[in-house]
């Protein structure tokens, strides 16, 4: 039981629990807060995986920016609370859960079937190098400069789109 394993179990459990809670809570604000928790524990997992930059970005962008935005909208609209998870159309929901569970089982089965571990490297140094800001930056501004630009335009378009859509009237 190294620290790595302990941390993985810790973050993994938080991830799972917060995800399930996020989906099942009737109050959207609570859901959103659980989602923030989930994102934060994901950031922890990223750190275990030596992806420091992504972990930081996860906290800043997701848990910070996007989720705040969500909370802002929830509070703005202040929608009524839903009924409790299984109160409304329970049969359909159980059916859905069963189906999704079956998909999950298939996925897990396939993951183990494929033995992905065999083709993976075990060198920590490589994974550490892969996660540095330097290597990400180099890749991004050399090989991936075009997608990077595209992402920039996408964000611009989304900004404009959001402005247009959220404007009160179209006059």
């Amino acid at each position, binding site marked *: 039981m190294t620290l790595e394993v302990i941390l993985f179990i810790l973050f993994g459990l938080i991830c799972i629990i917060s995800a399930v809670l996020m989906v099942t809570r009737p109050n959207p604000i609570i859901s959103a807060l659980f989602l923030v928790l989930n994102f934060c524990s994901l950031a922890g997992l990223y750190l275990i995986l030596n992806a420091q930059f992504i972990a930081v970005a996860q906290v800043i962008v997701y848990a910070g920016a996007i989720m705040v935005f969500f909370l802002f909208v929830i509070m703005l609209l202040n929608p009524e609370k839903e009924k409790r998870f299984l109160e409304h159309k329970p049969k359909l929901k159980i059916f*859905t859960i069963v*189906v*999704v569970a*079956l*998909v999950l089982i*298939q*996925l897990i*089965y*396939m993951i183990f*079937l494929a033995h992905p571990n065999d083709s993976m490297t075990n060198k920590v140094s490589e994974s550490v190098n892969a996660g540095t800001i330097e290597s990400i930056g180099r890749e991004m501004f050399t090989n991936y400069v075009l997608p990077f630009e595209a992402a920039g335009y996408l964000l611009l378009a989304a900004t404009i789109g959001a402005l247009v859509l959220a404007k009160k009237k179209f006059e």
Partner: protein
Amino acid sequence: MIDLIYLTVLFPLLGFLFNGILGPKIRSEKVIGIVGSSAIGIPFIVTVGALIQTLSLPVDQRLNIATLFQWINVAGLNINFSYQVDQLSLLMSLIVTGVGFIIHVYSIGYMHGDKSFWRFFAYLNLFIFAMMNLILADNFLLLFLGWEGVGLCSYLLIGFWYDRKFENSTTSSAGLKAFVVNRIGDFGFLLGMFLIYSTFGTLVFTDVFSRAVAFDVPEHIFTLIALFLFIGAVGKSAQIPLFVWLPDAMAGPTPVSALIHAATMVTAGVYMVARCNIIYASAPTAMMVVAVFGIFTAFLAATIGLVQNDIKKVLAYSTVSQLGYMFLAMGAGAFSAGIFHVMTHAFFKALLFLGAGSVIHSMHEAQDIRKYGGLKKYMPVTYATFLIAATAISGIPPLSGFFSKDEILWYSYSNLGIIFWLLGLITAMFTAFYMFRLYFMTFEGQEKFSAKGGSEVGGDHHKLHPHESPKLMTVPLIILAVLSIIGGFIGIPEIFSGEHGNIFHSWLAPVFKLAEFKMMNISSHSHFEELVLMIVSVAAAASSIFFARHIYLKKPAIAEKFSSGFKGAYNILLNKYFIDEVYEASIVKPMVKGSENILWKIADNKMIDGLINSLAKLVGSVSNNIRKIQTGVAQSYALVMILGILVALFWIIISYS
């Protein structure tokens, strides 16, 4: 002049184009009349020239062909616009252009003042154009062009006064009837042509006829060809059962009746049969059919003619009857006698019609003979010429009708048997009777038109003042009268003129040489018999003339008594054996109603289109039901998607393990 024969076709065409295109702008009856008449006068001169030239040739070179240009050339079918100048076509051209010219001149007077004067002459010229094509054609197809062309002109001219009423319907209905009935005949003609082409591989007369002799063709093929062609002739020449259009054709202006429905077009069928003599001669059964149809038509039409009261109707049925005679001659194998009758008939029947036209003209379009009477003193020329024509058609020697009709009767006796002769004789008696009934009621006896306030005819309420027609109309009458008198002398029977004394017969002999060679089985009879029969027929005709005089001039009451005594028979005759009604009820009505109610409204709209539309509706309704799956709730779509993923993954796992 033989090489110039195409002018006989070209000039009428030019005349048609001139009158048709420039006519409405010129509006001068003089110019139009002169152009129209000379468009046929010049061809007459050309024809005479060609005749003279042909006469100068030796007998075996009298068949000349003048080719203009190629018409249709496909595979083995090679057809030209080319004109055959031989004895038969020259004779017919002379009749058509000669009588045609006279009638054109007459028309100038008759149609005077008509608002569509130009149109009338344009149509007449077009008719002559088509007729000349029919006559001069050197192949079946070109003949058919003329054949349909004259039908068209007949249609146009019958419906010339398209806004007038005629009997129970309109003139245009009469025209349509004529065209359609003619088309039924043409249908047979077409089949005949197809059969000729598939049998002989050509449609050119000279080739077909020489191959008909040379090829070993089974007789039933000949019979079929002959019968198919005869259907065409039946339509065009108004024989049973397709004669119904001719009486209605009287809706047209009278000169049209004279030209088209008496002198020229209706004899086209006879001409065609004579032209194809070799085919008919090779098919004895078909000959018999032709003869039977001919004699029955002659007889039937004559009986109808006995009781008609419309002056033109009487003449129309007389025409049908005389055409029956001509077919009787054809059926008897007496081709040249038939053609002879075509010629004399053209003279006297045209004369009768023109005379009738003159009467109608002066009586302000009244056509009912019961409203005439005593016109002799008002219109002397018309009266005299009409009398000549009536005598001629009755077969009184030495007028032209006697020679031709008697020849036919003689041949029907010698080649077909006594029954044909007897029927022919009775028909001749009827002919003489109704012609003189017509004559007496029109020109002799009391004036019935002057009855005060009674005469409603022509919409005139005042007293009529009959008057002789202008010179432009009487001169043609006189010319035709002369022709009716002397026309017969070129065909004096051999018993009077000696061996080869019959000029007409020897002139046409080369044309019918092959056919006569084929029909060698004709039995010979003595001259004595011929003479006896001749006397019998003349006596019969003369007696029925006197009978008619007795009834209609001396004691009109007898006629009344007859018609009331035999009311049933009288009505049947007056209504033409109800043939029109039978056709209407048995063919026209069922076809129109059937087409409308069954074919169109049920088969087409309900069944075929209904099937298509219900297929479309089926797709529509299925989709309508399916679309309910699209609830519009995005989550249900996603659920289905997940199910799809489930299945897809399952499939992948199965295939990997």
